[in-house]
């Protein structure tokens, strides 16, 4: 089933050649993506929400998939194919298009852990050398330039991302995330992912 879905996605990508995407919500290039990433790219697990993500960050990730440096299992399984024949121009246009869609928060974390997550996000834990995420991801987890928006992303996606850096995947990710994530315990990751999933 999964395989079938994937194959038709690859075919669709091969046949699409769209130059300008803005305003073409129905274009093939976009549907190739939203088919997995959900209606208006709001996320459809395991594919994360792309709507409202920073353009530069999206473009960097697409390069990472096509060059196989983002190498965690789901990226390998889904995104390596999806980006195999994507031209830099289409990648750029898609990144602009998705960054301009307004994001809806997933709100699927554990309410009980959100306060703990908020504290780590804002203050870090200086005694344990855990940094305050706010310094880079911003006061409302909105991101900037190549630093992604985290607010409102799916709990399980955020959790998996942070765990996988600690496990050694995606090593060549931009400084400093591999180091940040390797300092966090499972409980701290769950708390951060919970807090972030509720941010609007």
């Amino acid at each position, binding site marked *: 089933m999964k395989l079938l879905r994937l194959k038709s996605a690859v075919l669709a990508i091969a046949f699409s050649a769209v130059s300008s995407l803005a305003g073409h919500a129905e274009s093939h290039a976009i549907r190739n993506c939203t088919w997995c990433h959900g209606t208006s790219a709001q996320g459809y697990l395991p594919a994360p929400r792309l709507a409202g993500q920073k353009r530069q960050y999206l473009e960097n990730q697409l390069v990472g998939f096509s060059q196989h440096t983002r190498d965690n299992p789901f990226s390998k399984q889904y995104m390596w194919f999806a980006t195999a024949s994507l031209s830099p121009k289409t990648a750029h246009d898609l990144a602009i298009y998705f960054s301009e869609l307004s994001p809806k928060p997933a709100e699927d974390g554990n309410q009980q852990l959100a306060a703990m997550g908020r504290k780590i996000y*804002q*203050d*870090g834990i*200086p*005694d344990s*050398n*855990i*940094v*305050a995420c*706010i*310094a*880079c*991801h*911003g*006061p409302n987890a909105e991101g*900037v*330039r190549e*630093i992604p928006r985290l607010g409102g992303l799916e709990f399980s996606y955020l959790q998996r991302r942070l765990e996988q850096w600690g496990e050694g995947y995606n090593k060549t990710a931009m*400084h*400093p995330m591999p*180091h*940040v994530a390797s300092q966090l315990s499972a409980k701290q990751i769950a708390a951060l992912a919970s807090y972030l999933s509720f941010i609007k």
Partner: protein
Amino acid sequence: MKVVRLRSLLQIAVLAVAFSTAARASDEKAAAGVSQRDLQAKVDYCETCHGLSARGFIGFHPIPRLAGQPVEYIENELKGFVEHKRENKESPSSTNIMFNVGHVLSPAMIHALATHFHDLNPKPFGGAPKEIVAAGKKIFDDGVPSADVPACGTCHGADAKGNGAFPRLAGQLYPYIVTQLTNWAKERAEENSNIMAPIAHGLTKSQIEAVAAYVSYLE
């Protein structure tokens, strides 16, 4: 008038430096109490935000270069954050960041970290507009006499490497310097901060950008 003002500025400057060498000797002993392992863990932590080899990083706000900064200046700033004399008023979150970082550090750890970062020498981060560098060099070397702004090199060193309480400007991040000079009076109220206040105030926006661009490329 101009001469008098500059001279008194320089006197404060010289006094501050003389004071610094005396304070240094007692700190040296304090550094003894830090294990190599604890120090390395802290260094990794600082570099998470301040960039690899502490060359600076541009997060949501610019996070300054620490590499090559005089030991005493680093110690002064950490004290300023902890005592709330240095605050980032435009962005309160940014103040709390360094308060939180600093208030758990022992004097021995602060000294060990300051010494460690002082000894690093990575290449500048870069990225400033190149076309204003020449105008910036002129301001750095000669000041802006018509606005009573003295040459920066008088205090920060001809090579901009700083000394004692005078910070290194060489290789500092362009957007960080621009923010500091633009917001000086609002954000910095430490012991030595008033030396810089009239200087920062005397520079126009485009002069600030030019001198920031020039020093940001110095190695």
